[in-house]
């Protein structure tokens, strides 16, 4: 593991009124690494993802990103156009509900091609061919390329969202409960797919999940959050097999009982 992080946060704080969503949170992500943020509903996971990706401002603290040229940028001090450009190219964001990200009135090919067009691709045939390649990467038949997403199942929609996100080969992807809301059998296939893609393309990811099984399957490291506080962090196997913090022990044992 390189000693140079891709993304680092220090001292993040964010309260919603009296609710502590982030309390002195530090986080580090190395290139190619998958970091899972786990914890119960309401523990601050989504808030952390939004702050790390610059979509939401914290009340204090800082987030740094190291770009492809090795320059370090303060994510929250970046001009709006640079941050949006980053979100369109080097970064990706996978939502729990794919409908929040996809354009439901646009064909699968148009959905996957949008980021390419936003980056300046102006060859219809190339864009379409690349869209088909990515549909195949996410195990959607190439002959669905001209279909509207509304004819897709939930699992297919999520895979389409992933294709739409990865088409520009982002180095860093933020994922919020990407398998939430799907049937267990569909989840397993999607997790396998995500694991394969992340490994094949060397993508670093911050993955929010309340499901420890998802973290175990995908993540190199985990951060455990409770009421906005990171109570434990470490290698996935270590944390899940030998939890140190009482809250982590509770989480792990409730999984075992489930």
């Amino acid at each position: 593991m390189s000693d140079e992080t891709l993304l680092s946060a220090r001292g993040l704080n964010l309260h919603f009124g009296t609710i502590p969503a982030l309390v002195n949170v530090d986080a580090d992500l190395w290139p190619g690494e998958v970091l899972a943020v786990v914890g119960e509903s309401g523990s601050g996971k989504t808030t952390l993802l939004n702050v790390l990706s610059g979509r939401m401002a914290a009340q204090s603290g800082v987030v740094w990103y190291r770009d492809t040229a090795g320059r370090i940028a303060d994510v929250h001090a970046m001009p709006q156009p640079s941050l949006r450009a980053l979100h369109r190219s080097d970064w990706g964001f996978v939502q729990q509900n794919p409908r929040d990200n996809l354009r439901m009135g646009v064909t699968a090919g148009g959905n996957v091609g949008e980021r390419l067009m936003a980056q300046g691709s102006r060859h219809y045939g190339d864009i379409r061919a690349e869209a088909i390649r990515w549909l195949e990467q996410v195990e959607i038949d190439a002959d669905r390329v001209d279909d509207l997403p509304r004819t897709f199942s939930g699992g297919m929609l999520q895979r389409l969202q992933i294709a739409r996100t990865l088409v520009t080969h982002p180095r860093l992807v933020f994922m919020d409960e990407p398998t939430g809301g799907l049937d267990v059998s569909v989840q397993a296939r999607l997790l396998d797919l995500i694991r394969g893609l992340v490994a094949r393309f060397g993508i670093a990811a911050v993955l929010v999940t309340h499901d420890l099984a998802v973290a175990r399957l995908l993540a190199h490291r985990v951060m455990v959050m409770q009421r906005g506080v990171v109570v434990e962090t470490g290698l996935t196997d270590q944390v899940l097999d030998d939890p140190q913090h009482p809250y982590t022990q509770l989480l792990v044992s409730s999984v075992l009982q489930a």
Partner: protein
Amino acid sequence: MTGYNFAYLDEQTKRMIRRALLKAVAIPGHQVPFGSREMPLPYGWGTGGIQVTAAVLGPNDTLKVIDQGADDTTNAVSIRRFFARTAGVATTTRTAEATIIQTRHRIPEQKLHENQIIVYQVPQPEPLSRLESSRIETTRMHGLAEYGLMHVKLYEDITRFGHVSLSYDYPVMVNDRYLMAPSPIPAFDNPKMDMMPALQLFGAGREKRIYAIPPYTKVVSLDFDDHPFRTTRAPHACGLCGATDSYLDEVVTDDRGGRLFVCSDTDHCETHRDVGHVGSEGVAA
């Protein structure tokens, strides 16, 4: 013309519109808000264009007004009469003689020159309006030059129809920066906007927006490398003047299904006939 200020609008309003026009010329293709006034004509009759014309009109100007290329439609006639009455300016139907041309839905066939201004009547100034309904979002897209969505629309058209299905109000990039709606002119006219020697001004009354293209500015119709923008016209010669390079209207000539293709630009057709050209249905001038 008692009871009216020159060209109907009061001087303060004209100054306000001119300030908006100066901003618009300084930022080609960028929509500038302006305090659109009520005009003694219904919206859709070109109140935005009329206000722009009123603001740039001088006593020595010669005004031409066209609607769908014709000088003799009700809309064109009433606007021309309005300015003849309120400003006492000379009017003409001759493109070459006009210093200001107010238009709806066409650009004259004859090449415009540096001493002319063309004023377009615009119903919907926002080229992204059909794709994104929030003005806050479209304003941000313009601010950051994020126009990927417009290309998604073109991509979808090619996927569904094999070509871009827009035949008028076809979106253009102005000066490599702003995406702009050229108003509902046929795509056939789009190339005329590119590097045009005349000043092009656009007024949208209901939407309260003004925009402009200064002379000799690059205007490019959006397309893909492998599906380049192409103009189309009906594959006929004008029945009256025989022109094969002008934009044609199809007119019904009788109740037995008789049809005739004629130049939509009536001045172009007359000028062509005046120098001796004649079409299959025409009589020599």
